[in-house]
């Protein structure tokens, strides 16, 4: 392995660490706006990884995939979500069910779990980075945790997006083997979900004057 490849590998590792840090920030962020930006940033970071990890020989497929996912996750989704927040006129602070510091500590535990699990999964060896699979698992877990531990409907959309980021990262680990169509399909699903949820959040808010999801469970028909 020559110096250039070592440097690229270091850069990929650094990007992956930033993805982990974005997860931590997501767990500790107290405002909707910063949550949306963090998830968008995470999407952009993940979009950059295939470009860097392929080194000199970039295929059209890789570039296209990175471009589509970066534009969708970095620009379209946050714009949709910020619009939904503005239109629903909800308060910008999150109302966490689990507090921020316990959330961060949970994040530490989840990270350890993901690293342990990632080391034990019987997967084919990846060319990109040995960290990618554990970090993908971690991102998925953080997404699930965000859905469970935050009250607002918007944060559930964000948790869903973080999960999609995790699935994308999982796909990156096996970039050569995964069909292009599957990746695009997932992105399209995520796009539709965010689109529909954005409208739904607005509708929920108009109907009930708030978007607290835990109070929906007390509804009677």
């Amino acid at each position, binding site marked *: 392995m020559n110096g250039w490849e070592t440097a690229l590998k270091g850069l990929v590792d650094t990007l992956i660490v930033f993805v982990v840090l974005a997860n931590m920030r997501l767990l500790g962020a107290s405002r909707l706006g910063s949550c949306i930006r963090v998830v968008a940033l995470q999407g952009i970071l993940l979009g950059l990884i295939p470009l860097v990890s392929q080194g000199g020989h970039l295929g059209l497929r890789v570039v296209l995939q990175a471009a589509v996912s970066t534009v969708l996750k970095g620009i379209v989704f946050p714009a949709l979500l910020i619009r939904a927040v503005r239109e629903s006129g909800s308060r910008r602070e999150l109302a966490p069910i689990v507090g921020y510091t316990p959330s961060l500590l949970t994040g*530490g535990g989840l990270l350890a779990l993901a690293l342990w699990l990632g080391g034990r999964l019987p997967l084919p060896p990846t060319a990109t980075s040995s960290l990618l699979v554990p970090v993908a698992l971690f991102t998925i877990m953080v997404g699930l945790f965000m859905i469970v531990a935050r009250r607002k409907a918007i944060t559930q959309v964000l948790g869903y997006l973080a999960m999609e980021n995790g699935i994308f990262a999982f796909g990156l680990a096996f970039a050569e083997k995964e069909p292009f169509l599957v990746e695009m399909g997932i992105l399209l699903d995520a796009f539709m979900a965010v689109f529909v949820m954005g409208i739904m959040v607005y509708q929920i808010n108009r109907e009930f004057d708030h978007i607290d999801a835990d109070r929906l469970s007390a509804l009677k028909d």
Partner: protein
Amino acid sequence: MIVVAVVHVLLALLLAPLLPGVINRTKAALAGRRGQPLLQAYFDLGKLLRKDVVYSTTTTWVFRAGPSAALAALLVALAIVPFANARALLAFPGDLLLFAYLLGLARFSLVTAALDTGSSFEGMGASREVTFSALAEPALLLGLVAMAREAGSVSLSDVYTRLAPVSLVEGGGPVLLLVAAAFGVVYLAENARIPFDDPNTHLELTMIHEVLILDHSGPDLAFLQYGAALKLWLLGSLAVGILIPLHGAPPVPAMLGGLAGMFLLAVVTGVIESTMARLRLVRVPQLLVGATLLSLLALLMVLA
């Protein structure tokens, strides 16, 4: 090599009070003021050393011993910390833990001295100091453990002379960057700098470090202020040692590079203090837990 180590200790003893001066001048420059002279900390120390000490009648020997014990612990810690990629004066396996707990000992003597005054105000400060440092300690220790594991040694000197060369672009780069970021947060927290504590405020209910030393006077206060400057130097050199690659440089340029790094860190601290507001007290633990997570992440990456 021993000459270099002695020179490093002497430099630290001599230049440490310059660090608060640089921070203050940076803040003044950013606020459009002229600010205190760079050497103000030296003037203050000189003035305090020439004064008498006043002891309250409610205090005991604990209060009198506090400042000297704290300064002594920090001086020993200074002999352990490697500077500018050279080995420290004292280096033995396990000095990594000794370093962390010498800082703890200094804090303990300071806190007991504050409690000894019987002032409820100082009691509050003591409680905050202990709470926050208890949260900063895992960040420091986990970071040190991660680096020790990466370097394969439990001596600070070994760790810093072996790791700085594995510079930031090669393997281990992300680990070192994470640890450096965690150490940066610990540096600000332990030195009571701005996101955690405002060193300019006096007699406010939210302050931490200043309230602990309210009842000290004369040479005792000088000891405490000099100790605070040494602590800036100690924790600063941990962060600078990671970030500035000086491997293979001959002693004199390495030393100059290290000094430049220390003063650059002081300038950065000044910029942070000028651009940020102090955090609300309830948010402080969150930031410290965040720093701990950075260290934990580094450790997990080393282990994985």
